């Protein structure tokens, strides 16, 4: 999982929606598999189990595109109550495919540039 968090250079998109339903209800639709399946089918997910979940705040799923080269990504759903008793839903969807890592040896070393200096 740590390699996903390390992906900072990849493309991502952010969407905000105002939903006319209380946060607790939206949370159930996001997190209970039977409800989630009705609007976000498991076929688009790499894993139906969430990658992480902070109840009534944020839930993340790993996704896999259905077409070659089956790019993997991570979607984050964040929910906050809005002023009208409804819910603001933020969707953050970013590529997180191991194959997208550019120049991995250099990146792994980037914080320690001087340790290898010989006398």
């Amino acid at each position, binding site marked *: 999982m740590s390699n996903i968090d390390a992906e900072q250079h990849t*493309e991502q*998109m952010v*969407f905000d*929606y105002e*939903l*006319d*339903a*209380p946060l607790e*209800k*939206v949370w*159930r*639709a996001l997190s209970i598999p039977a*409800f989630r399946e*009705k*609007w*976000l089918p498991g076929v688009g997910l790499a894993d139906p189990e969430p990658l992480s979940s902070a109840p009534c705040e944020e839930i993340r799923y790993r996704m896999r*595109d259905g077409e*070659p*080269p*089956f*790019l993997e*990504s991570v979607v984050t759903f964040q929910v906050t109550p809005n002023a009208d008793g409804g819910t603001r*839903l933020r*969707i953050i*969807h970013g*590529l997180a*495919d191991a*194959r*997208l890592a*550019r120049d991995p040896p250099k990146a792994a070393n980037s914080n320690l540039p001087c340790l290898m200096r010989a006398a």
Partner: protein
Amino acid sequence: METDIFKALADPTRRAIFEKLAGGGMNASALRDGMEISQPAMSQHLGVLRNARLVREQRQGRFVNYEVDPQGLALIARWLTKYRAYWPARVDTLKALLKDMDQ
């Protein structure tokens, strides 16, 4: 760039090659296994896929290995385009579901 991708994948043979490579990189002769295709034709198809930045080649000694190029900007652009349309449609379905759910 998008047009290059669609042109490259419009050909069924090229699409088959691309999908084969999506399962893992391999050299041209391994690619030809199980496909009725001559070596020059394979080279030509690989050239088109490479120009569209769908496939990249890596030399390993005397051999050239081909693999899907996930860094291809065109490929990422296609991914973004797809999901930019995907989420609004999913959220519409979510809104309908919320109406149907009990409090």
